[in-house]
């Protein structure tokens, strides 16, 4: 089951660049939450703070509190542990190029020491079914490299890989921006199904996409969160002038 996320006065820096300023946000469990805003507004940095990937960049720094479930992820738990609970799908599909489809999905478990073949087989199949890829790849699981799939299939493979470690939250950083419309709609259908089991946070450039998949939407601008509300409200009756300007296409 998914868990909620409480973010309090989150600030993040790249060197002297203050990329996120005083973000406060409650992300509900088992819903999809979309983050929109122009390029460089901090939305990707924000999701990278939710699984502590931000700090893998040498000059990066972060302050504030992020509570996922009942854990303060910057106090109670190591980065490695939190990343097993909070999965991530990146903008460009990034399967492990030397691994088969099967090995890609099993990688997170195998590299954390699980080795029971029987259990792995079962988890790989379940994850690929959950990412709607199983029927397309079931005959080539161990024969084909993950890199041999099409872009849309690769992205669903990456979703399967993230699901295989059984996270509570799934972060998606513009998961469809490098994909064609058909693949994009497959990913969006998938987000609908995955909500039942996971809390989903999706960064997107595409406002129609946010409107289609998310219950709640946050609008980011210049490192601050301008407005956070139900998707319906954000797109029909935003409270802030800047949100309105952005969604009506006046800038960005």
């Amino acid at each position, binding site marked *: 089951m998914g868990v909620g996320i409480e973010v309090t006065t989150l600030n993040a820096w790249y060197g002297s660049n203050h990329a996120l300023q005083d973000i406060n946000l409650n992300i509900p469990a088992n819903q999809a939450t979309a983050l929109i805003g122009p390029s460089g507004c901090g939305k990707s940095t924000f999701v990278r703070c939710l*699984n502590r*990937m931000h700090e*893998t960049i*040498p000059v990066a720094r972060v302050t504030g509190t992020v509570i996922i479930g009942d854990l303060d992820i910057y106090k109670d738990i190591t980065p*490695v*542990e*939190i*990343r*097993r*609970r909070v*999965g*991530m799908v*990146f903008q*460009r599909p*990034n*399967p*492990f*190029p*030397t*691994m*088969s489809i099967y090995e890609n999905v099993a*990688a*997170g478990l195998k*590299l*954390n020491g699980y080795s029971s073949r029987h259990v792995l087989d079962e988890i790989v199949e379940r994850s690929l079914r959950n990412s709607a890829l199983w029927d397309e790849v079931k005959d*080539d699981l161990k*024969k*084909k*490299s993950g*890199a*041999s*799939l099409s872009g849309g299939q690769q992205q669903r493979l*990456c979703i399967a*890989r*993230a699901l295989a*470690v059984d996270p509570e939250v799934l972060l998606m950083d513009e998961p469809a921006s490098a994909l064609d419309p058909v693949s994009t709609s497959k990913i969006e259908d998938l987000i609908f199904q995955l909500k039942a089991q996971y809390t989903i946070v999706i960064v997107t450039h595409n406002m129609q996409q946010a409107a289609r998949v998310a219950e709640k939407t946050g609008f980011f601008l210049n490192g601050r969160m301008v407005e956070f509300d139900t998707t319906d409200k954000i797109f029909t009756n935003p409270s802030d002038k800047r949100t309105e300007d952005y969604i009506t296409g006046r800038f960005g």
Partner: protein
Amino acid sequence: MSDGAATGLAVLATVLVVAPLVAIFAYLVYKGASSLNLAFFIDVPKPVGEVGGGMANAILGSAILLAVGSAIGVPVGIAGGIFLAEYGRGTKLANAVRFTADVLNGVPSIVMGIAIYSLIVVPQGHFSAFSGGVALGIMMIPTVCRTTEEMLLMVPNAVREAALALGVPNWRSVLAITVKTASPGIITGCMLAFARVAGETAPLIFTAFGNVGWNARLDEPIAALPLQIYVYALSPYDDWHRLAWAGSLVLIVLIVLAVSLVRYVTSRGVLKGAS
């Protein structure tokens, strides 16, 4: 410039690259093949004046020296490359290591021989296969180290991030993901280093020393193909000259076989569409 001219230039360049190798190989076959017989591969050298004899002990010796050298050069070089690319990026220590490796790469091989002579042979009081292997191993380190670094730097950061985002500890991600992804290039680097030191004579003169008989012990002087070729080629005897040609041919063929074998073994299991 037309496409035809560009293609012509590319073909010309290819011929210029391939021609020297083909020419050397053809000349070696012409000069050496006639002296190759079973005795060459199973006998030790005969004293001057006796007909026949072979270089079997030198073939074994080269294999042992290269095994010792690879056992030192490959792990140290790869570990150094991993440090440079994955851990030390931008640090002073990494810059120092990189500079040292580049200087080491430029050290003349005869100097390497003398250095090992004074560091190992003199304290131990005798020449040995071990000291020769160490000399070859140290010569392999810079090539292996720098190619490992270059190949790891070519692995996209997205692959590292994918592993970390799965909750894989960094060291495990480096070994199981990044190094594995770069492994074809790293293996090429190891093969380059191997092939280069396989033909080295100078570092062995003061270390392995050479041996006219059989030896498989690491603490005694040992024969090596390049040493044997060197001694025979400088001798005044015609049949030794012929054996030197045959030895050169065998050396090159063995290097090609070893490199091909490693390539074959490591290319099995590569998947359809793997990049």
